[in-house]
């Protein structure tokens, strides 16, 4: 896992974990790896992982069982909302990039439809 060095790492760890959850690599109700294991896997400071997990606890995506570790919420509504946020973020970036290329918002749909048709062949 490569992090961008100009964005706080804990925010990027959050994004990474959101993605793991959205992709089903970490499932509802399942225990996530320990703080130290995540730190090692991502080559980051234990404090930084803790900060990310704390935020996700506050948001309700994770919950802590005392002495057992962190678990993914079983609240399917919240999980769906989280996935939608990830999709929105991707779309945001897409729209911004297209604007930089000179594509106006009102033309996006047409361009996208054309492209998808081309992909289908």
């Amino acid at each position, binding site marked *: 896992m490569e*992090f961008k*060095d*100009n964005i706080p790492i*804990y925010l990027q760890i959050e994004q990474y974990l959101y993605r793991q959850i959205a992709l089903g690599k970490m499932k509802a109700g399942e225990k996530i790896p320990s703080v130290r294991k995540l730190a090692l896997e991502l080559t*980051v*400071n234990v*404090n930084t992982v803790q900060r990310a997990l704390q935020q996700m606890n506050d948001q309700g995506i994770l919950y802590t069982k005392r002495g057992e570790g962190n678990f993914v919420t079983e609240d399917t509504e919240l999980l769906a909302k989280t996935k939608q946020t990830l999709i929105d973020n991707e779309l945001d970036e897409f729209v911004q990039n297209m604007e930089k290329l000179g594509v106006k918002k009102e033309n996006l749909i047409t361009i996208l439809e054309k492209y998808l048709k081309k992909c289908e062949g």
Partner: protein
Amino acid sequence: MNDLLTVKDLTYRKNQKTILKDANLNLSSGKIVALLGENGAGKTTLMRIIAGVAKNYKGEVNLEGTTKEAARKAKLSFTDGLTGFSDSTKIKDVVKFYATIFQDFDENEFDELRKFMKLDNDMKLSQLSRGMREKLIIALTFARKADLYLLDEPFGGIDAMARKKIINSIILWKDEKATILISDHFVNEISSLLDEVVIVKDHTILEHKSADDIRQNHETIEEYYESFYADEDDE
């Protein structure tokens, strides 16, 4: 947060040359901190003074309420390049020496570190590559139970695999309350680990900032560090 280490108005001269002038630094517990600066900026001297190895400085160095050099030495772990040992010394003899000198040296802990670093107890210091030597220094340093660990340029001239091992050992062995100060003149290899950055330049400590505060401004740690040297490139 409680201060672990306070350096106040530190000035150090050697052979009529100023090496450090009015340096001030506060470190709290539980952090990984980079000490960044060019070669000759005074990083090693600062570490040696904090460690109680370099003496006859002006100013105050306070580690958890104690300013006495001997007491500081007992509370912090610093391995000064293995300079006191002859080349024919075996690793196990260095370990014996450490276990005798330092009460908090844990031989079992060292053995785990040694295995992790893939070092052989019977190897002589002369047989060690630069990377192996650095790994041995780290293993010796972390085998002590201290509140402050000082790592002096642990990544100088070593290959990527040795670097990875050392970085992983920091993540695995660092106690929650311990603080690690790592000096380096190249920040990229450790930037993802850092809580804080300290800049040494012009024989003093210029800045001390949290890594996240730097990134919050959309600046990389490297850009931040290089900004202190920008004026020199223009000349």
